[in-house]
């Protein structure tokens, strides 16, 4: 089998990641400035001030931290210019900012496919206590992803679970 290459580049949506913390932070700021309580039909108060500010502000900060963490990961991954290569005996793929990981198919202990409503489909392989995830959206096309999945499933024959 000749080596097969797949283009694999991390993607990042600023809107999807930064809009939720901005909205929650905005609601939190409004609750703080206007001393607003959250209530249903002005009768049943479910979040009195200052808890309304704490809850929305806290959730906004948590989501902002998560968005920044994802952005840092994306910046690191985008500096890595390696592609995924499948050969007869092993697979190489980008990892971190500059690394290239090589895994022999015999070392792959498990391979499972997951589906997420936000991130789409992904393939995870477990190799010697390490887990590597390949996301559908990072491939250059859906066709490339399905080819990669089919070939990887065919080549990883020594799965233990």
């Amino acid at each position: 089998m000749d080596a097969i290459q797949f283009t694999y580049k991390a993607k990042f949506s600023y809107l999807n990641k930064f809009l939720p913390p901005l909205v929650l932070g905005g609601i939190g700021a409004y609750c703080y400035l206007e001393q607003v309580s959250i209530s249903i039909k002005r009768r049943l108060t479910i979040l009195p001030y200052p808890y309304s500010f704490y809850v929305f502000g806290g959730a906004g900060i948590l989501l902002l931290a998560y968005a920044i963490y994802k952005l840092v990961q994306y910046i690191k991954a985008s500096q890595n210019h390696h592609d995924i290569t499948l050969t007869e005996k092993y697979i190489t793929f980008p990892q971190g900012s500059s690394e290239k990981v090589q895994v022999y198919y015999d070392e792959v202990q498990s391979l499972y496919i997951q589906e997420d409503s936000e991130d789409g489909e992904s393939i995870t392989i477990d190799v010697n206590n390490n887990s590597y995830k390949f996301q559908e959206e990072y491939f250059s096309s859906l066709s490339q992803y399905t080819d990669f999945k089919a070939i990887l499933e065919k080549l990883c024959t020594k799965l233990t679970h």
Partner: protein
Amino acid sequence: MKRKLKQEYNTLESIKDFLATKTSLECFIALDEWIFDEIRVSRKCVVVKKSGIAGAKVVFEEANIVDIQPIAPSRFINTLTMRGLLAMIIQFIISGAQNKVAEEVENHLLEIQII
């Protein structure tokens, strides 16, 4: 789960006929009412029905790439699982049976996928 099928299986009819030879479950083509993101325009899909609550749909993503999704074939049950806390509870209860049907369909389609 997405799978790339052989060129001769590039129509819903051919996939339905293939699945009908492989499974005893009911297979038919229907308008895709089980749309999870509401932006997509409704299109046709192959439905494999085990019961009102457990089934799977096969829908084309690209020319010969299909997506296999677990669904509740019954319109009533499908509406119940759309929104709210009750929907989440019902979905949690019935998702196991739906996933089994989707897995069975996917295993059949593996025979006609391109490697």
